[in-house]
């Protein structure tokens, strides 16, 4: 059953790589404007859950529903458009394009959506300013620090004002101070724009920026809201 008012829901997800199930009947749901931490030991299926929710991989069985529509019923092109326009992604290592400047990187999703360069970069610069890295706009990723690069990656994820942000260990490569700042900026921006954030992390201090946590173990997801 889909919880009322949820933006993104998964029910009974199964996914195996070979004989080992990565997901074994996992359920999940998130509302608009909510930050949910997905926690659990390495190899528990956290990242597989995120990738199924984002439509990056197809589950063997089970359903992912976004805004009332099952992802599995969407044609590939529509699912790709969804990932570009309505979803934003932040990974552990920024995964910026090394040949592009920081502002070009942040503007990339808008350019891919067909926006003109000038307008795309104007909007990207607003996000770089908000993430306190406007001064490195003209530099290439190789010329900036890890913390700066990750902020550019967050700007890139937010530039399309997505409705869902998928963040997989977004501060995993940063020191405490930079990690905290990135989490503050990311969750503030998400709350302002009413975006939902699916935050995969094994760090408790990062999870403390969430509204609630879901623990994945042995391929099953346990919602800890109301557990205490």
């Amino acid at each position, binding site marked *: 059953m889909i919880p009322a008012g949820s933006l993104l829901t998964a029910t009974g997800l199964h996914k195996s790589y070979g004989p080992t199930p990565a997901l074994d009947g996992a359920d999940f749901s998130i509302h608009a404007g909510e930050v949910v931490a997905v926690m659990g030991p390495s190899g528990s299926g956290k990242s597989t859950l995120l990738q199924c929710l984002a439509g990056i991989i197809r589950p063997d069985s089970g359903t992912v529903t976004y805004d009332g529509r099952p992802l599995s019923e969407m044609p590939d092109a529509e699912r790709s458009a969804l990932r570009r326009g309505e979803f934003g992604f932040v990974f552990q290592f920024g995964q910026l394009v090394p040949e592009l400047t920081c502002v070009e990187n942040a503007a990339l999703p808008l350019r891919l959506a067909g926006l003109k360069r000038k307008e795309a970069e104007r909007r990207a610069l607003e996000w770089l300013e908000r993430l306190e890295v406007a001064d490195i706009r003209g530099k290439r990723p190789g010329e900036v620090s890890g913390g700066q690069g990750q902020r550019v990656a967050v700007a890139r994820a937010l530039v399309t004002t997505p409705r869902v942000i998928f963040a997989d260990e977004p501060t995993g490569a940063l020191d405490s101070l930079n990690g905290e700042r990135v989490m503050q900026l990311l969750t503030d921006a998400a709350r302002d724009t009413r975006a939902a954030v699916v935050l995969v992390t094994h760090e*408790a201090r990062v999870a403390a920026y969430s509204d609630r*946590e879901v623990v994945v173990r042995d391929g099953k997801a346990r919602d800890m809201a109301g557990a*205490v």
Partner: protein
Amino acid sequence: MSIGHTLLALLESGPRHGYDLKRAFDERFGHDRPLHYGQVYSTMSRLLKNGLVEVDGIEQGGGPDRKRYAITDAGVTDVGHWLAQPEKPEPYLQSTLYTKVVLALMTGRDAGTLLDVQRSEHLRLMRELTQRKRTGDLADQLICDHALFHLEADLRWLELTAARLGALAKEVTR
């Protein structure tokens, strides 16, 4: 925390009344646990007896709360020693949580759920502290961070224990 040393160090900037000392302590260090007036006066009379403070003046009206205290040279030396002495690391070797996990396993209860519920409780407190950090000043941030890192350490232990429950169950039920 040594309340005596803290009050003594607060006197280094100049003489203060007992109620003024309490207020200064509460503002800086007593957010969650303000001092009782009784604690202040019993501490000050001990410091007085030991020659670490002296009475600098008494306001009209009498009563113990009208005394103004000043730190003595011996008091300044004592604060210096206290600050230079490292704190003893507390290893919490016999924590209640460890006991609960072992007892759950010994009695065939679900230790995994016990740990999940504990994680949730820790995270609830960590969210509160994180929120307080967002709105607080730098001093507030530092004190919250200290608590957050300790809670995080508990959780790292919890995750490791969760990963070893199977092996631990075999040992304790042997």
